[in-house]
């Protein structure tokens, strides 16, 4: 299990999802808090490349032994790549939530959507008040 962290170079969604913006693409995943709340991830079913994602909508599920949680898109766009390694090793989401535990790569359709997302400091503040 990784130590708690919220990297400064990411943008955060209120449902505990993150996006790393690289040009006109975004990489999505779930935060340390999300995986910690869920416990060991034992099942993750990748969505299909080409799927259109809408900001604030669920695009996948992560499951622990006891629970299932939706994964929400922090921004809109089309999936260009999925992390296929997660189907064999879903607990990578626990051990490296911001690195090898990434979920999808998305061609962003509206880069201005970042304006409604939080930076790391604001997200940490939200967790503190949760």
């Amino acid at each position: 299990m990784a130590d708690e962290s919220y990297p400064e170079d990411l943008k955060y969604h209120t449902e505990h999802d993150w996006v790393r913006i690289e040009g006109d693409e975004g990489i999505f995943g779930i935060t340390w808090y999300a995986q910690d709340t869920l416990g060991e991830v034992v099942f993750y079913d990748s969505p299909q490349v080409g799927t259109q994602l809408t900001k604030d909508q669920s695009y996948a599920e992560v499951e622990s032994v006891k629970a299932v949680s939706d994964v929400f898109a922090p921004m809109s766009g089309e999936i260009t790549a999925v992390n296929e390694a997660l189907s064999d090793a879903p607990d990578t989401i626990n051990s490296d939530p911001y690195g090898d535990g990434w979920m999808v790569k998305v061609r962003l359709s509206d880069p201005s959507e970042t304006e409604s997302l939080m930076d790391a400091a604001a997200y940490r503040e939200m967790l503190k008040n949760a």
Partner: protein
Amino acid sequence: MGRAPLDKLDSRALPTPVDTLRRTALYERHRATGARLVPFAGWEMPVEYEGIRVEHLAVRTGAGIFDVSHMGQVETSGPDAERFLQHALSNDIAMIPPAGAQYSVLCREDGGIVDDLFTYRLEDRFLTVTNASRHEADTARLRELAEGYDVTLHDAAGEYAMLALQGPNARTELSRLIEGDAPSRMRVTLAEVAGAPCLVCGTGYTGEDGVELLTRPEYAPRIWDALTAEAVVPVGLGARDTLRLEVCFHLYGNDMSEERNPVEAGLGWACKLETGFVGSEALREVDPPERLAAFAFTSPGIPRPGNAVRTEDGMTGVVTSGTLSPSLGTGIGLAYVPKETAAAPGTRIEVDVRGKLRQAEIREKPLYRRENR
């Protein structure tokens, strides 16, 4: 993330505000061990420590200790104690030998299941262990049924802490701490464990050998400390659920309810109709169309309670317990299905997991046996 987790431990909990949750005598131990604590039937209970899978496998291969102090106890004594319990409980109480244990069901008149229980025959009384979520319903029902019997019913739930020591190494671990002999399976003995007087019961709900210890709450921490100081792993209610499900033990509230009777739940073996217990008349008549069956996924995915089941000939059913089996590595569960389906292991079924159809097949119970390891 989002959506309330389909966490049975959470969703089954009574809607009690967090500040009124009851805590067991081991609460501080759980906090210190880093347990994830959740509301469960009005109690603040550890659902996991290191992780459900690790804890599960520790019980299958070594020894684990569970705090099950949320479970309730009722003591029955008096001249009519045995005759009363024979009337109230489904199994044949007369068959419990001295210092013996027995599993039974408490039924409504119409056969609906009020609770499932273990009863121990002690020297001067019977001790019955209830499910936490059903303790109030059980005691109310027993008091009602006790009308006309010369018995004393004592609600002893506040007087006991209860620990379950389970796993292939459980008895070895116990032998370091117990004065005298441990009881054999389905027997109970009074003995000191780590210097604390305990009722030591050769029972458990994991499919492994082991004991359950009933003691005064103030002694519980010392027993916990003595066991966990060595190779005994603290195990939460999450793994308790996966362990019991692999061996197809039923969970009240999931696999049993007042709307289901013991025949459809597959508990006919614990119902001795000839004793004339409450509900036996109704059970003589019933031939329910559904039975509780065990199944395993032959595809990826994890079944969850409430998922719909479809058979190849278009019949339907419903999952009542589902999880990822840590021992088998596949999705497993229990489901009410047409009795013809339940009677035919190998029958292919489909389980609708939130819109995705997953392939599965009916299996013989239990789903896990030691030789599968």
